[in-house]
């Protein structure tokens, strides 16, 4: 039973355009959400996070949106750059937990020059 789902295994975007990566979750007890970027043969790198008390968090080219009623979050990258090509994972943390992350299955983003 996947509690965090990324339904698009891959996404291709032209350089300079917006990349939108989506994530859905089922457990309403998640209260903290994160996005990670991962290159092959490396560990994931933290990108941006959002608490459930917010609906938007922005950091440079990266913005995360949270829609709690829909149990949906998205990561927007504007403008997209070829160096953004990687696998992006969304992850969620249960309220009151030891901060174990539950990950989605990832989306491979390819930014075309």
């Amino acid at each position, binding site marked *: 039973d996947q509690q965090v789902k990324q339904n698009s295994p891959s996404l291709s975007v032209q350089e300079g355009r917006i990349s939108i990566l989506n994530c859905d979750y089922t457990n309403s007890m998640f209260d903290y959400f994160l996005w990670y970027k991962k290159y092959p043969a490396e560990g994931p790198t933290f990108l941006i996070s959002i*608490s459930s008390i917010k609906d938007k968090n922005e950091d440079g080219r990266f913005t995360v949106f949270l829609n709690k009623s829909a149990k949906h979050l998205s990561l927007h990258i504007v403008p997209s750059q070829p160096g953004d090509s990687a696998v992006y994972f969304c992850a969620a943390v249960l309220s009151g937990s030891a901060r174990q992350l539950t990950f989605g299955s990832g989306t491979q983003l390819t930014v075309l020059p």
Partner: protein
Amino acid sequence: SQTIHQWPATLVQPVGSPLSLECTVEGTSNPNLYWYRQAAGRGLQLLFYSVGIGQISSEVPQNLSASRPQDRQFILSSKKLLLSDSGFYLCAWCGGTHLSPLHFGNGTRLTVT
């Protein structure tokens, strides 16, 4: 600043052999520590986490075990490897507040032959 070290980077082991992967964190005290595994084409699955020395929580019953002999050292072990243990093993740490992200090491690629 905090750093996390994980070794070896790659490992090829025969079925039935033992395993020991080590992870150490520098620059922080009393971190939460985690072992994740990424199987080929899959997301990241939490295996073990630890909130203190000698405290280990297992998320998935399996052929592996974990130990935390020192505050900043986390070890993943197996007495007899199975083919299904092949994968990319990642150690992570976090500290501070509930809203602290996990930070990952560069991983160990384990191939069981």
